[in-house]
């Protein structure tokens, strides 16, 4: 059974490219436009990995991960955060919230695929 990855980013084009790369590698992909939307999309379904942007309107990545880590069935779900290199502070907050894996924007689809493969295999 294919593993499911939730990608949370307010940029439609980033979601689209990541989705292309991941589905090409054999993963199922669920998209969400921000943290709020992501919480809705969980909907009790099995999510094997979350990729989330930090800077988003409504509920940002840090807030989303905090809530995710409280949810039964998702508390051990690995999270990859997307950040820019200048945001050491966000990275610290994110780590406290439970996101240990980070990918720095801008990234190439192959880099994202490599990061994902460290955490789960299709």
């Amino acid at each position, binding site marked *: 059974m294919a593993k499911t990855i939730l990608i949370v980013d307010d940029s439609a084009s*980033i979601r689209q490219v990541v989705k292309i790369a991941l589905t090409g590698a054999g993963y199922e992909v669920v998209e969400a436009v921000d943290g709020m939307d992501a919480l809705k999309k969980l909907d009790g379904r099995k999510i094997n990995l979350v990729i989330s942007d930090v800077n988003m309107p409504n509920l940002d990545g840090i807030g989303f991960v905090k809530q995710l880590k409280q949810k039964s069935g998702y*508390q*051990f779900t690995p999270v990859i955060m997307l950040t820019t290199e*200048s945001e050491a502070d966000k990275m610290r907050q994110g780590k406290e919230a439970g996101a*240990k894996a980070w990918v720095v924007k801008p990234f190439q689809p192959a880099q994202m695929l*490599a990061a994902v*493969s460290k955490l789960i295999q299709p």
Partner: protein
Amino acid sequence: MPHNSPELAAALRTFAEESGELLEAMASHLRALLEGDEDMERLHALFRAAHTIKGAGGMFGLEAVVGFTHLVENLLSRLRDGHQPLTPALLELLMDCRDQMEDLLKEALDDGGAAADPALAARSDSLGARLQAALGSDGGTVANAEATTPAQPPTVVLAPVADEDVELERVEADTWHLSLRFSPGVLREGMDPISFLRYLESVGRIVHITTLVDNLPEAEVMDPLNCYFGFEIELESERDKDAIEAVFDFVRDDCQLRLLPPHSRIADYIALIQDLPEGQDRLGEMLVAANALTRQELELGLTHQRQLAGQAQVPLGEILIAEGMTHPPVVEAALDRQAQAKGRPGKDKGNESQFVRVHAEKLDELINLVGELVIAGAASHLLARGRRDRRAQEAALTVNRLVEQVRDVTLKLRMVEIGETFNRFHRVVRELGRDLGKDIALDITGAETELDKSMVEKLGDPLMHLVRNAIDHGLEPPEQRLAAGKPERGRVRLNAYHDSGGIVIEIGDDGRGLDRERILARARERGLIAEDETPADPELYALIFEPGFSTAQTVTSVSGRGVGMDVVKKTIAALRGTVEIDTVLGAGTTIRLRLPLTLAIIEGFLVRVENVPFVLPLESVRECIALSATSATDRRQYVNLRGEVLPYLRLRDLFALGGTPPRRENIVVVRHQGNRVGVVVDQLQGELQTVIKPLGRLFRGMRGLSGSSILGSGEVALILDVATLAEIATSRDHNRGGTAAQLQQGAQACSTQ
């Protein structure tokens, strides 16, 4: 970029649309900022837009766009975080940069980057240089320094570099040896060691994995969520150490990776074995089984080790160095880490008896609940009173008293000392002083004064503005100071103390002081006061906080356009605080911020209009007077209060509550920064202490409201924003409140939340 798939081409079209929208949004935010709308959210939105364009552009390989946008993003990030004040000059620059981004994107998306326009690239360079200049030496290096921190390798111990001079036996094995131990919590973080091992296959061929199950405890104490496994791995790889370490970068905080290159010295293997918790016999056998060491090599190494150890009780690390087996720094690093590991638990234990670390969120939750409790307590008290049951009343009173104590204690939990915030300014003062060629001492007093943590966070920006302002405007250049008979070294002072239930923060300097005449002239020039008017000092000095007000003769990059001071005023007002200025020409200026200790509770004054309850912050209420139908000059909307003109506004009109005013209305006279205005209401209901809740979504953007609160009766009361009311009353602009329908909906939304 290669658009070799229809899917990617579609994604690129999405990006074109998206970036177009983002550029539009950037333009409108920049315009609003230029027009003086100082909403911080605009800077956040600008940053996010640049961030997304850079991030998505990078995925499509649009190098020119990414490189340029990166600089823009850096500047926006600094502005957003308050590290740099937003000046009109910077806004103009950002406008130009946005246009450049648009052109770059157009070029990249239209012709696939086939023929790059050299003029466009040149413009990128020149704007880039201006951005770099705006960022200053400080901005650039800070960003870079931060960037390097996360790139640390995982905890790597004992990875000796091959040293050809040393004649020591090397192992035959041509594989890397990896020894991995994970922290118990790694699984809870969502990190599965097996996944990383599988990914290891992307940098080489795994010849052998030994899974160490030794540390798995007995069933009774084994925690299924802890990681107990360790791994010893032989890896065939052409890649270098960094590439192998990079496999484990996500677990760098949660694993110890020991890495031995192919043909490492036997001694290194021995050191590794002895460094691991499983014991040398077990590991030695295991390494032999895994073909990492031959049995001979193992024996040789262990014998050598025993001989050396027999001579004296010298730590292993020192032996290795003495024998030239390994490089001192490597061992030092390893020993350091051991010392840390040993030292840490003891240290923590010492603190544990006195402190418990609690997540801020949990405290917020507690405070929220206590707030509910206060409200519920008030309700039960009300009920008891209504029943005229003395015993019930007494019991309710006791409960209320206890609840209030619990509330006070709970709020104290969130109190932190302001010292940490103050101390951040040492660096600011030093760096800014250096940039401006001023020698400055920073005196800090009252560092132990406590205030609410959420308050501290919000004070960072205004304090930064005020300190920068004191350094830049307040303190004279050294030659002027000397000429005025002052010590060359200027002084900036930060002080804090508690005063009548609030906190006072002072930012002082011994500089030139405010020049009353120049401010007066400037205020007249800008039409802020009439030619014949001579306001009292406090009112006049308060003008330096007006948007765009500055008397600086030269504009520096640090401050000087009055933009920052305007932000200060707004931020402090939003915190229900006030700003006072004490200044003596030639001797210095002190700016005094008075703030409530906490944002969670308000001493309020309850009023009603059309039976809708409103709360005014008590500290702003001066007096209440009756408004008789005759004394009101309704067209003009002011009354004569003891010979003074008192402008007023009717909440009924502001919020379009409709209905007919009662025969006898009341005016609550409130004071805001020297302005007195009247707020006309139906009923006065007296003082109350209440817990502030944020406004529901429906209320956001409604003028005149700052929060909501739930009364003991269960009704939602709206907390009025005095600053805005004063502004509306004096400007006669009554048309921007909400509507009655909005108010009702919002109140419902609040109470159901």
